[in-house]
């Protein structure tokens, strides 16, 4: 029993953090927000050069074969820097789905190699999300027709942009007609693929929410230490301290929930749905509290466009209901714990 990360995993996380600190600095984020596409080919190129597009791709397709547990660290960094790119959608969520296709499925190896080298953008249209993120700049879309999974080239879909308050999120309504040529899985195997994809998407959003929560806490701590009123820094006032202590506590108890969910997913555990939904709820609540208390301790500054906090708050507000809103996830947890014979209570945290 060892519920910790290896030194390698932690070192990797640090390296990603150092890379994003410069590549996705708030000034860069603002520049990219201002562009039409909301995406920077240069940023994507740098990400690919760092090998980050190759993390999940199996080694025989040119990737690093990392699992969900590594992504639980990686997605926190993506959130912390509010990366203005849908990296996790292709490199984690889509890569996971494609990897799970039977070997020999047409184009499987080609797509995976292209994900690894960063030369393809793949959008994932899971039915839990009414709108598809990054449908417009995508080369390929993975779309659902009931249980069936289709891989549809961008030219074959009609895309209508739906702007989000988070200018890094580029959402679209996608209209398309299922065809035999785009079908890659259906029936039982399609259902299984979508179920796994859902959990990966949820975990990715959860990790980003947790990273966002930590960023908003850090920004707030910096701000309240430096801002002075009544002759002293506002961080010395107890009401302000307690706001931020509550955020720290929420974060502290969301982290291990995320890690447990990632492990359940990586190991195909039976109770994975409830674990993943729990992670989404815990991380979402932490992020929303960090946003609310964050803006409160910033005063009017927090309500401005100029102060960086807004970019992180908006991502948090948006991601909370992506890949299933709280009602969806509470229902999944309820399904697991309210059934007859559910394994609950002491001794069931790691074993059914």
């Amino acid at each position, binding site marked *: *029993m060892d519920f*910790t*990360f290896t030194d390698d995993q932690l070192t990797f996380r640090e390296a990603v953090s150092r890379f994003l600190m410069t590549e996705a600095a708030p000034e860069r984020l603002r520049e990219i927000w201002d562009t039409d596409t909301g995406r920077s080919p240069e940023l994507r190129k740098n990400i690919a050069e760092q090998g980050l597009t190759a993390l999940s791709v199996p080694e025989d397709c040119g990737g690093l074969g990392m699992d969900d547990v590594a992504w639980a660290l990686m997605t926190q960094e993506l959130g912390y820097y509010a990366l203005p790119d849908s990296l996790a959608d292709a490199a984690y969520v889509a890569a996971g789905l494609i990897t799970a296709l039977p070997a020999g499925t047409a184009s499987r190896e080609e797509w995976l190699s292209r994900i690894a080298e960063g030369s393809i953008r793949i959008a994932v249209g899971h039915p839990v999300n009414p709108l598809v993120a990054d449908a417009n700049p995508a080369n390929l879309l993975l779309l659902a027709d009931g249980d069936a999974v289709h891989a549809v080239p961008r030219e074959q879909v009609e895309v209508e942009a739906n702007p989000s308050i988070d200018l890094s999120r580029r959402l679209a309504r996608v209209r398309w007609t299922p065809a035999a040529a785009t079908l890659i899985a259906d029936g039982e195997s399609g259902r299984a693929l979508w179920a796994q994809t859902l959990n990966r998407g949820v975990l990715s959003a959860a990790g980003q929410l947790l990273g966002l929560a930590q960023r908003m806490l850090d920004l707030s*701590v910096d701000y309240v230490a430096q801002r002075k009123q009544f002759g*002293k820094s506002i961080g010395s006032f107890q009401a302000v301290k*307690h706001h931020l202590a509550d955020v720290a506590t929420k974060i502290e108890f969301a982290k291990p*929930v995320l890690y447990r969910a990632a492990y359940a997913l990586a190991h195909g555990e039976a109770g994975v749905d409830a674990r993943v939904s729990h992670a989404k*709820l815990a991380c979402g609540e932490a992020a929303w509290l960090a946003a609310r208390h964050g803006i409160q301790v910033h005063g009017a500054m927090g309500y401005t466009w100029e102060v960086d906090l807004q970019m992180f708050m908006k991502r948090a507000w948006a991601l909370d209901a992506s890949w299933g809103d709280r009602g969806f996830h509470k229902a999944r947890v309820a399904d697991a714990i309210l059934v007859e014979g559910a394994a609950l209570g002491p001794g069931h*945290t790691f074993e059914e």
Partner: protein
Amino acid sequence: MDLAYTPRQKAFREEVRAWLAANLPREPLASYDTREGFEQHREWESKLFDARLSMVIWPEALGGRGCDLIEWLIFEEEYYGAGAPMRVNQNGQLLLGPTLIEFGTEEQKARFLPRMASSEDMWAQGWSEPNAGSDMAAITSKAILSADGTHYVVNGQKTWSTRASFADWLFGLFRSDPGSSRHHGLSYLAVPLDAPGVTIRPIQALNGKQAFAEIFFDDVKVPVENRIGDEGQGWHVAMATAGFERGLLLRSPARFQYTARKLVELYKANRELADRDPSIRDAVIEAWTGTEAYALSAYHTVGRLAKGARIGAEASTNKIYWSELDLKMHETAMRILGPFAELTGDAPEAVEAARWLDGFLFAQAGPIYAGTNEIQRNIIAERMLGLPK
């Protein structure tokens, strides 16, 4: 990350489970806040001790098992999962015990620890005074070393001392340098409660029981051998073991997970009524998610400790977390029970002998004792986040 238990850990779990199944009291014990219940719990503790299960993390030489913290978590899961009695001597075993192991002389360890593990000696804590609550450094009770250096003469008053009406010993902080103030000049002493000059006045708690007491010291002679750590270093001794492990030891996840499981059962049995208020279902779900998160955090932290990590002020998040969670779970149970929630244990129509009401009352104290949650928030802000004083 490897979330499988080792064969050794599994075998230990089985052993504890089998022992509890064979030895648990058939009838629930009376409340340990009564004399009768206190002695019943003492008897239970001695049975645990004979099986070397009372202090599994202590070394074998002290009557323990030398378990690591993962094994200890397993023990707790089995213990509370089986609905076993509350641990009546936990203030001694979990608070003073680790302090003695770290700061006690060999003579003190031999004298105190085995009798503590077996609960032949029951311990009460003496920190709080009428004017030293959250501000513990305002302690004024004095312990003045005699001219021949053989004993201290203790005068003053302690209060809120849990189960001191029934206990044998008290440990606490006393001002040994009369000219000192705040954190300086305090010494950590063990005082026998039957010593001449000790007067114990029970305080009736919210639940009508003598859950704590005031203690008056009138020229009480305490041998110098009863000082733990150096003269004047009492604050340091008291704080050194006040960190994560102690916080976790005192409130392991399992007891809250047990409460969550009971709450889910209560909800399921009363679903039709409960669902008229949709927020109840939410709160029941949160009982499970909240207690799981607490357990996961414990395993994560224990793993990091084993790898040599140091746990600092993050520990203060624990206290806030479990106490608010426990309160919320009991509030939810009260809401599910509706008009039956107020019935006391002797009411013919009491549900589950009023265990939820009893738990609800005690849960009110969680955010107050062991450092109020406001104080914990101050600590998190100042020491974990680095905000100015």
